[in-house]
Every structure is written in structure tokens, then in C-alpha cells.
């Protein structure tokens, strides 16, 4: 059947299949509603959601929250080799090696980091889903061709894949987003296909077919909407990895070179040179990345449990 990374793929498929099971003893309550109900009582999920919402607000309100302009240079007379001014009146976290206000850069940086996370994940989901729908919806030789292609993509380790794409496309923010998205595509394709295959055998799909509903309508109107929950979970988790991966690419010199858009990954990468002089320059962006990634991970993990019939009680 399949050729490699069987275990990894089996795991993706298991997730997909499990989402297709009908929960016991929960007749009459929709999957979504019961999931939401459980999430609202789950302190861990709430913590994750609060983190995510807070950072989204910071990103949206950046111009109001940031005390200064993130690219203007201050205190230049006090910056010497081996000394960067620390926190003081008007600069709560101090300035970076080029005299730019660290707090303002962190606040504005949330915009770019979250944007990279969201755009690359959405891109990965959309393309992955298109491939998944094609394979899972049409079946037959289309399925074989698409899945072979997905297998090839899965056979290149994530970071190497991102590097390859990034070198090809050059260094700008769109290339960065695409490079991160490409890594996600095969995962989503496989996940959605598996999930759709599990749904296709369900009673309601059979009923729809028996009623003479067209195939396109069955796929898009019935099977697809019911196959989405593992994709939503995976997308939430992918947001975390996307932000971390952006930092890794920046560190390798494959980030966005535009200095007018501060970004946590790039800030963290450039702060490494001053780690022994002013560790705060690296620690703050790292903390932001870790907290946001944690927020998305907590939310995603709990969402998985809430949507997973196996965890229902």
C-alpha cells in the first residue's frame, strides 16, 4: 500500500479515522456543541485561549500600546561596543543594539510573527485541503497520484524542506510564509483524505447516495464539513510550529530582511551576538515566542481531546 514513514502516516490516519467515529450516548448533541461545552469548563483550554486572545489584541492595538516607534533609534550616544543601555525612564525594557525601543519592537513584532503564523498555516491548510479533497473525494487513480506526491513531500524532513523552498524563492516575507506552509501541506492533505475516507463509509453518506444526491454535493455538503475537526486541531497546533519555524529560518539568514517590520524570530536571531552583553534582548522575544506557541499548543491539545470521541465521558 504505502512505502515509507508508515508509522508517522499511520498516526495521521488514526487521528483522521477517530474523528469519524460516532460518539456513544451523545445522541442529539452536535459534536461541535459538546466540544465547546467541554472546552468552556476546561481551565487549561481557557488558559490557552486567553494567551492567544491577549496576543491577538496586542497585535491589533500595537500602535496604541507601543510607547514609541519601533524603528526609530534612540540613545545612540550611549551605545558602545560592549554596552547597550538597559531599562530606564521612558524605555521600560531598554533599547536594542541599534537603539530601538525593545518594548515597542516586541509589541509591533507580535503583528509580524502572528501574521507569518496565520498566513503560512492558512496557506498550508488550503493547499493541503485541496489535495486532500481531490484524493479523498475522487478516489481511484487521482487518489493514488496525489498521495504519491504527498508521500514524496513527507519524505523530506521539515526544516530541510523549508530551507530548500526559501533558497529558491529568495528572502522576503512572502517567501518565508510559503516556505513554512509547504512543510504543512502534506500533513493536512493526508489528514483530510483519511478523515474523508472514514466519513465516506458512514450511514449518512450512504443515505445521501441512495437518495440520488450528486457526488459533488455529497463531498462538499456532507463529507467535507464532517471531516474538518482533525484539520482544525492540527491547524491550531501548526500555528505554534509555524512561529517557531519562522524564528529558525531567520536564524539561518533566510528570514525577512525588511527592517521596517520587527519580528520576534529575527529579533531573537540578531540578539544572539549580544547575549553576553544584554541577554534581555534575546530573552524577551524568546519568551514571547514560547508563550504564544504554548498558548496555541494548549488550545490545540485540548481541542483535540474535546473533539475526540475516545476522550468522551
Amino acid at each position, binding site marked *: 500500500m504505502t512505502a*515509507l*514513514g508508515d*508509522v508517522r502516516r499511520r498516526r495521521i490516519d488514526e487521528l483522521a479515522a477517530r474523528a469519524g467515529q460516532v460518539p456513544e450516548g451523545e445522541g442529539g448533541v452536535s459534536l461541535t456543541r459538546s466540544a465547546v461545552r467541554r472546552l468552556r469548563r476546561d481551565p487549561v483550554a481557557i488558559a490557552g485561549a486567553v494567551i492567544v486572545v491577549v496576543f491577538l489584541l496586542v497585535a491589533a492595538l500595537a500602535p496604541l500600546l507601543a510607547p514609541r516607534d519601533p524603528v526609530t533609534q534612540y540613545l545612540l550616544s550611549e551605545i558602545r561596543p560592549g554596552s547597550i543601555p538597559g531599562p530606564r525612564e521612558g524605555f521600560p525594557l531598554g533599547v536594542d543594539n541599534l537603539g530601538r525601543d525593545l518594548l515597542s519592537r516586541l509589541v509591533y513584532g507580535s503583528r509580524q510573527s502572528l501574521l507569518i503564523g496565520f498566513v503560512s498555516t492558512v496557506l498550508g491548510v488550503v493547499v493541503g485541503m485541496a489535495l486532500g479533497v481531490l484524493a479523498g473525494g475522487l478516489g481511484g487513480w487521482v487518489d493514488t497520484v496525489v498521495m504519491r506526491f504527498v508521500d514524496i513531500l513527507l519524505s523530506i524532513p521539515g526544516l530541510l524542506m523549508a*530551507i530548500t523552498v526559501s533558497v529558491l524563492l529568495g528572502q522576503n516575507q512572502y517567501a518565508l510564509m510559503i516556505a513554512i506552509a509547504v512543510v504543512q501541506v502534506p500533513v493536512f492533505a493526508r489528514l483530510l483524505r483519511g478523515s474523508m475516507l472514514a466519513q465516506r463509509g458512514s450511514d449518512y453518506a450512504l443515505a445521501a447516495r441512495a437518495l440520488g444526491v450528486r457526488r459533488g454535493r455529497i463531498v462538499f455538503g456532507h463529507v467535507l464539513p464532517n471531516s474538518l475537526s482533525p484539520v482544525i486541531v492540527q491547524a491550531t497546533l501548526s500555528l505554534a510550529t509555524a512561529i517557531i519555524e519562522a524564528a*529558525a529560518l531567520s536564524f539561518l539568514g533566510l528570514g525577512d530582511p525588511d527592517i521596517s517590520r520587527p519580528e520576534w524570530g529575527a529579533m531573537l536571531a540578531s540578539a544572539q551576538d549580544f*547575549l*553576553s552583553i544584554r*541577554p534581555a534582548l534575546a530573552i524577551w522575544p524568546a519568551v514571547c515566542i*514560547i508563550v504564544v506557541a504554548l498558548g496555541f499548543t494548549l488550545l490545540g491539545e485540548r481541542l483535540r481531546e474535546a473533539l475526540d470521541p475516545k476522550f468522551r465521558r
Partner: protein
Amino acid sequence: MLRFTVRRLLQLVPILLGLSVLLFAWLRALPGGPAQAALGERATPEDIEQYNRLFGLDQPIWIQYLRFLQRAVTLDFGNSTQYGRPVTEVFFERFPGTIELTLAAMVFAIGVGIPLGYVAARRYGSALDSASVVGSLLGVAVPVFFLAYLLRLLFAVELGWLPGSGRQDVRIDATRITNFYVLDGLLTREWDAAWDALLHLVLPALALGTIPLAIIVRITRASVLDVVNEDYVRTANAKGLSAATVRRRHVVRNALLPVSTTIGLQTGLLLSGAVLTETVFAFGGVGLALRDAITYRDFAILQGFILLLAVVYVLVNLLVDISYGVLDPRVRVR
């Protein structure tokens, strides 16, 4: 079992062919194509034309691909522009370093991860359990290169306990046999060289091992929790088997099945992508060579290394599948 293995090996062929097409197309798709990549940005049109003629780049594309494939099969990926030596030679010189580092990282991750995950599961809900859950979430969220820098700053720069860069002290004039520095030291009985190389592994291995550690703790904990609630464990207890026997024969044995596959998958990932850690510690494995290749736009290295590393990754994954068949007889039937 043999048939299972052979079938799996044969199924690799289309994957590897697909990979070669992708990487062939990749080099052709670069701005300026392979000639510009090799000659640099200041190459004149005449230079490029001559290069193209010399290397058959004026031939139809499918002939070029077949020639690429022919050379790739014999592991010939051309010469590195940085080192002026064959890509494959550089690869095999560097790869032992990455293997050493991966092994050290996995020893750390497994040695700490499995006991920790087991104890966390057996004391479900305790402070230790909560700490291991939080820790394993954090371990995945921390950017690896940041952690590597912190470790280096603390233990190498500030405290000076451990070396923070390279694979061995440059002042040690060690004999090289296999390019596995620790092994070389042991083979040649240059004990101080082996010890020094081992010390150089500690910090990079800690940094590189964090993510596998976090994942192994999580999987072990979840898997032990699953298994202790199984009927056969209850039966074993009810039969009056001693707690130690139940633990060894029934709990651990079944719980380690998913863990072993995780270990395999993570090993494959580390072997192929220690780019970040090796860069921070200037550790001369394939990862550092890749980083340099990115910096100096050495496309021959990039293409060859990525293809070779993908092959390694695919082969390790294959080994994981086969070992899964050995460990879990149910898989073989399918």
C-alpha cells in the same frame, strides 16, 4: 519477514525517483539556473554559455535529468564551490559528526525520558506528573537555537565547565580513522582525545535532545497510562503475579511499543536536521555544512546534502517500520 522487508524496499524506488526529480527541478528553477549558481552573479553571458556547453546544460531537459540521475545513483553530485571537492566526499567526512551528536542526544532523551514518563504516569496527578507535563510542553515550544545559546553562555562561557564549540580541542593532534572522533580516540588509544571529543558532545546533545526528550516523556506517560488500565494488566494482578513481574512483562513491554517508534522517528529527524544546534556550537557535522552552504550559496552542497539526508531519513523511517513489524506481530499480517 523477509518478504515484508523486500516489499518495503521496493516501494522506496518511486519515492526516491520523485525526490530526485524535485531536487533536479529545484536547481534548474533557481534564478539564473545552475550555471549562474556555480559561476556566481558576475558571470558573463559567454561564461555561462561555455559552462552550459561543458556540462551538457544545452541538451534537452530529459537528457539532462537522466544524466543527473545516472550520476546521483553513483553518489556523484559534482564539486562544492566552497571546498572545491566532491560533495559526497564532504558529506561522508561530516556525517560521522552528526551521527555521534544524534546518538548522544538520543541517549540523553531516552535515558531521562522513559524513566520520567513512567514515573509520571505511575504517580498520575502528583506534582512530579504535572511538572513533567508542563516541562514536555515547554520543551517543544522553546526555539532550539535559543536554548543552545543559553546552554553555551551558561556552561561554556560563564562557568567554563564544558567546551562550547567545535568537535574537539584544536590543540589535540588526534589520528583520524573513521571521523567518529570519540571512536577514533578509543581505536588509537588516544584516551585524552576521546574524552575531549566526548566532552564536546555534552552541551550540543543536551540542546538537541530537548525536543525528543519532551516528546518521549509525553508518549511514555500517555502509553503507560493507557496500558495500566488494560484488562490484561488487571488479570495479571489478579493472578497474583508480583508487582515487579507485572511491571516488567505486562506494563513496560506493551507501553514501550509506541515509544520505540517515536524514538526511531526522532532519530531520523535529528540525523537529518541538526542544522540549528550545530551552527550554535560550531559543531562540524552536516548541519553546519548546510548552514555554510546557505550562507555562501553553495548549491551543489545544498542539492547533494538534502538529497542524501532525505535518503537517510527515508531509510531510518523504513527501519522504524520494519522494527515495528518485529515488535508488533499484528502489523505484519496486513
